[in-house]
């Protein structure tokens, strides 16, 4: 057995390593675990930072047979934050039993999909629905989505961070003007505008700086607020009401802003995103004992949760998967009563879990890589990574990044405030997602791969800590032009 302790943050754990090992030995002695199983068992102890996530506090993952004899039979992942000593042994026994197909009749989960890459999971459909029907969700919960963030507010709106960004931008404009290279129209793009708070703060600050220094840049601004939901853009208008003369609101797909803004190729002097990449489709790769695996997921609802929802929402258990499909296609109005529709939506989301399995890969050529990520480069990175590692491919973030860079003016820069993993080694230091934030997904982003994609596109990618709030996990990615 390999015991991997990932919870190094010193947070209070619900169970100790000692209790986990005791429980496993007891199961071995009682015959619930076979000796061979025990020998190949890999146990990960994580302190999962998101209280709401897609895992049971004890989860088993089976691996398909690899080319070598010593492939792990299965892995146990234990969330030491939420597990409790009292029920631990029973939970492990139940989880192992379910994996061996020994679950009791009537306790089978309701499956919402077949096994697939996380990128293609129904979980992302829920995420999409959340952003498109945010007002419905908020009306039902009685709180705005920013209030649902950890700490109740977004780092995007930190006045000092905004002020620094404005100062950097003004300096760039001044330099371009000195070199007689300042374009007549000064384009800026904010992707993912939220309530428009950051855009409003940014514009207030920039106008004040411009007036104070008498540079007359503000009237030349073309500030684009981009979001993939028209409803979100509408909600952002009041925050920039004093700047409507220089603002435009653009519906765009964060995965490919070029689709709508291709006419601005090489023209935008500054692009900013906050917490967009951590909310884009993703998939994971794992290496265990020298073998590569694709991580596949399958969304399900536990039997007892399904029975309860069935009763509360007057939907037969067998009809839950079909009702979920229709909810995701048509929104909560699909159910005759919108109130009931939102209740069903929120409840399914709350209890939805992702079962995981590892599917053996011959090599990385079996994986469809995001465009811009060179296969040989990824192979080199994986070769140098820790021998046992599970990492994000961050497909959506890489796609968005690659499709945003061509919009940049040659002297322009991109800034992204988000949660980044900056080396493969960091993946060994804790759980990096995905989690649930209210109705959406939050997931750490593989900064190493962003750096590689950036280099091939002609940009150096740097990460600076978000120094404006103590204890913040946010980093600021910024680009500089490669010579």
């Amino acid at each position, binding site marked *: 057995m390999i015991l991997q302790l990932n919870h190094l943050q010193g947070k209070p754990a619900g169970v100790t390593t000692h209790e986990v090992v005791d429980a496993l030995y007891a199961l071995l002695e009682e015959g619930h675990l076979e000796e061979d199983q025990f020998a190949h068992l890999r146990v990960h102890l994580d302190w999962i930072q998101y209280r709401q996530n897609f895992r049971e506090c004890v989860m088993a993952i089976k691996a398909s047979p690899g080319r070598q004899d010593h492939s792990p039979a299965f892995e146990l992942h234990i969330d030491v934050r939420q597990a409790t000593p009292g029920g631990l042994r029973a939970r492990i026994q139940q989880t192992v039993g379910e994996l061996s197909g020994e679950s009791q009749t009537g306790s089978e989960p309701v499956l919402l999909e077949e096994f697939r890459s996380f990128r293609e999971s129904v979980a992302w459909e829920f995420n999409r629905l959340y952003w498109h029907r945010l007002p419905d969700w908020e009306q039902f919960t009685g709180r705005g989505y920013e209030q649902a963030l950890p700490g109740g507010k977004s780092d995007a709106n930190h006045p000092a961070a905004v002020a620094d960004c404005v100062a950097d931008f003004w300096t760039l404009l001044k330099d371009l003007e000195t070199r007689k290279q300042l374009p007549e129209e000064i384009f800026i793009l904010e992707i993912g505008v939220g309530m428009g708070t950051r855009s409003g703060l940014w514009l207030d600050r920039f106008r004040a700086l411009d007036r104070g220094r008498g540079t007359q840049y503000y009237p030349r601004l073309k500030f684009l607020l981009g979001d993939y939901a028209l409803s979100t853009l509408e909600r952002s208008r009041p925050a920039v009401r004093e700047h409507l003369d220089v603002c435009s609101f653009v519906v765009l797909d964060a995965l490919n802003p070029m689709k709508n803004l291709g006419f601005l*190729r*090489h023209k935008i002097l500054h692009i900013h995103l906050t917490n967009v990449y951590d909310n884009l489709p993703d998939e994971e790769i794992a290496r265990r004992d020298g073998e590569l695996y694709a991580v596949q997921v399958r969304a399900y609802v536990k039997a007892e949760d399904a029975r309860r929802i069935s009763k509360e929402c007057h939907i037969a258990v067998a009809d839950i998967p079909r009702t979920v499909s229709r909810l995701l296609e048509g929104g909560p109005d699909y159910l005759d009563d919108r109130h009931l529709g939102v209740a069903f939506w929120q409840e399914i989301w709350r209890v939805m879990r992702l079962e995981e399995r590892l599917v053996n890969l011959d090599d990385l050529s079996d994986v469809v890589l995001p465009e811009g990520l*060179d296969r040989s480069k990824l192979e080199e990175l994986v070769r140098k990574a820790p021998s046992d590692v599970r990492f994000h491919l961050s497909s959506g973030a890489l796609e968005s990044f690659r499709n945003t860079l061509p919009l940049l003016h040659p002297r322009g820069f991109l800034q992204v405030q988000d949660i980044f993993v900056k080396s493969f080694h960091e993946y060994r230091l804790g759980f990096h997602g995905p989690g649930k934030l209210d109705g959406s997904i939050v997931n750490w982003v593989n900064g190493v791969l962003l750096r590689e994609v950036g*280099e091939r596109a*002609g940009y150096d990618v740097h990460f600076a800590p978000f120094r404006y709030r103590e204890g913040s996990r946010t980093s600021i990615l910024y680009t500089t032009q490669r010579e």
Partner: protein
Amino acid sequence: MTLPLLPTTVVGSYSMPGWLERLKTEYFARRISKRDLDEVHDTAVKAAIKDQEIAGIDIITDGEMRRDNMIDYFAERLPGVQIDHASKRFHYDLYESKVLGKLPMAPLGLVDDFKFLRANTDRETKYCVTGPHSLAKRIRNEHYPSEEEFAVDIARVMNPELKELAKAGAEFIQIDEPYYSGFPEDLRWGVQALNVLVEGVNAKTGVHICYGNRYGKPSWEGSYKFLLPGILNANVQQLTLEFARRGGEDLGVLHDLSARFELGVGVIDVKTQSMETPELVAERIRKALEITPAGRMFILPDCGCLHLPRDVAFAKLSAMVQGTKIVRRELRG
């Protein structure tokens, strides 16, 4: 060989295949030998020649398949330039290079490249070299009192090589000076260095000035208006500029340049994989013809096709040739 009206040509580089990039990088990692790499390069050059021929290009190059990038191929050959060979991870990266003393005179070894090109095609050819201003901007100068003096001395060292190229049969030599656009304030001495480079060279010479193409994106933006009047002092016969990506806003500049130079007009945007149609190419040529006469115009892409996938590069060149044929037919009436 007689060239048709509106001859088509390329700026220099052709699509760099992924497999060649990997092999070049393997060479840097000392996993394949120089001999193997040379053989790979020969094969890649032949393929680039063939693609240009099939696309119907009138004046072709060797596709610059042997070059890592437009700077290092020359920096490595310039005697007296010190290269930090550990300074790049990927073949396309730029070396850290510097000059600590006066550049001595020595051959650069470019003639063999040209001879290989000449031996493998019956078409008209063009040989391209990076100009002294661009080289002076990228090689760190730790000896000369000024960039200007450094650039002029680079030109002095390279000039005999251009003469040798002409002796070997190179009838058309293009000098690439994209850094003019990034540093318009240098134009006066940039042109002075260019003139030293081409002095006494018994071949047609041209200068290519774009807004950069590192990693397939522009390095600068601005207006070609900076070229006037300084560029009129350049002792070259041809000037090639990019117009496809930038649109026609600077076309007016051509009016003032066309009396002095043959003009190479960029009609293919090499910074996007979106495909031009022959009709679009024809339209771009017609716009340029409103300003400059057909007899002094050459048709080419905005810059090298280095960063385009091979199928896209080939299709773009084919569209360029087809579009040019449309206009030729119209001109013939």
